[in-house]
């Protein structure tokens, strides 16, 4: 199996597993609250939030790869097909700038939380830097996917292959 396929399957499996654990926590909380209220932990909800935050941030890169981030496709009707590949270069560059910036400032947020030993209010006193870490990690993956998109878009321009032809080929 190719490395990219392993990465993709791995991310999907982690995201699915996070969702499954979150589902188990929420349902068991409802059960415990009505039948064994003394056993109900005070940290369930925050763990669910952290699990979903990690899962969502991790799949952000896959959405770039699959072209599933929502956008207006009006341009397909307005502009000639040949112009789309140049737009793809611009979009990938904006994506790289934004994701790298959020990776950088996300790391700073993590360092800040670690330095000041920021913890959650619940009894487990969860170290918040582990939650904040999902932002730079997710944005790093997204940056790499945008670099990949940029390389592909440039290759398309240099190779003279139109986006439509490429799509047809795929």
């Amino acid at each position, binding site marked *: 199996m190719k490395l990219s396929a392993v990465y993709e399957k791995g991310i999907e499996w982690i995201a699915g597993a996070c969702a499954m654990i979150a*589902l188990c926590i929420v349902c068991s909380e409802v059960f415990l609250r009505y039948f064994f209220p003394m056993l109900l932990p005070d940290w369930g909800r925050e763990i669910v939030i952290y699990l979903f935050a990690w899962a969502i941030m991790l799949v952000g890169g896959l959405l770039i790869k699959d072209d599933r981030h929502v956008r207006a496709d009006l341009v397909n009707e307005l502009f000639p097909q040949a112009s789309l590949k140049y737009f793809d270069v611009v979009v990938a560059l904006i994506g790289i700038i934004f994701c790298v910036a959020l990776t950088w400032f996300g790391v700073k947020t993590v360092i800040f939380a670690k330095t000041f030993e920021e913890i959650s209010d619940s009894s487990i006193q969860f170290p918040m830097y582990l939650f904040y870490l999902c932002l730079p990690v997710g944005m790093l993956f997204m940056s790499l996917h945008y670099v990949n998109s940029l390389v592909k878009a440039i290759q398309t321009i240099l190779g003279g292959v139109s986006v439509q032809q490429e799509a047809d080929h795929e």
Partner: protein
Amino acid sequence: MNSSLLGLLFAVLIAIRTPIFLTLGGLALLMFWIDGEPLISLAQIVVDHLNSETLVAIPFFVIAAAFMTEGGVAKALIDCANAWVGRVRGGLAIVCVVATTIFAAICGSSVATAMAMGAILIPAMNRQGYDKRFSLGIVGASGTLGILIPPSLAFIVYAVIAEESVPRLFLAGVIPGLLQAGMFIAIALFYAYKRGYPKGEPLTRDEFIAVNLHALPALSVPVIVLGGIYSGIVTVTEAAGLAALAALLTSVVFYRECTVKDIIPVMARGIKSTAAIVFIILTAMAFGHWITGSGLPQKLVEFAAESQMKPWMFLVFVNILLLFLGMFLEVFAIMLIALPILLPILDSLGINLIHFAVVMTINMELALLTPPVGLNLFVLSSVSKEPMSEVVKGIIPFVIALFVLLIIVTYIPQVSLWLPNLIYGS
């Protein structure tokens, strides 16, 4: 940077197919930088809003919708609706509206509703000699009920931005949703008698009981979700979790269209669909933060006050704006771009935010059906393998009905507010 230049940059980024989250996030980054605000605050806004309990309801409802779509629930509901209303003329069209209304009360997503229903009902209607355009139109239009009938993803996203009560919003969608279903049934009956569409075969008593028993697990899901919320037993997030669990069990244990092996992949697909929405929410929050700080909403409020704009005039203007945006943008993108700017004005004009949520959601239903970018149109075209033009032609009578509903809901606030006020007080 002045607001008109920002607006132009925004339009250019949208036009060159920049993803909405990147447009909003990129502009927020640029504006923070120009204004000299520390850029680390952008990262902090993102993680702060990610740490939200209401947001957690979205992935659970999306996962529930994913299991419902892939797990054989649609067929059970269609068979059940057919047993009850299939015997009248044009029965299958009425079955479509009724089954879609029930499915909408389970899943909360219009696209998932149209996809699940379309895959079964369009071939069935074609087999019974229904006009192809009509069957495409009724499935596509009924599918939009997914975001109006509770539980609704659109209402949850609205609640996050406007800081409104989710249970109140859910209740506000009930009467307009039923009104919409009633209008669509009336259209279906009109065409059924005009074109002589067939009646369904009557079922024997044993068949009737068997079909209803088979649908019972699927029908139990909305009872668990809505019953749980309104009886006060569970919170919205817990209800969403229970909906996901019930949908999982229904698909894997009762209808067996999904296997245990499918559970993690279906959940991963749910997370991916959620992420597409959440990334827009997070960057819209950051953009909204800058917009609030820039004083733009305040200027708009002052403009509205100086021009002595009446609430009804403003609602006409907003409806036109949302319909226009709906032609080009996706539902959640429109909500997240427009709401941070509109909310302060709504407040200053004394327009009830629960009422406005329903007005906005009906606009979003229209957005799903208006070309060139209407997600339900794409879904139906792909499910039925028919060209978009056929779907658009079929949808026209239903879009007209939705316009009528929009006017009713906009100018008679009690249609949306009566039920939540009755349950929770005004």
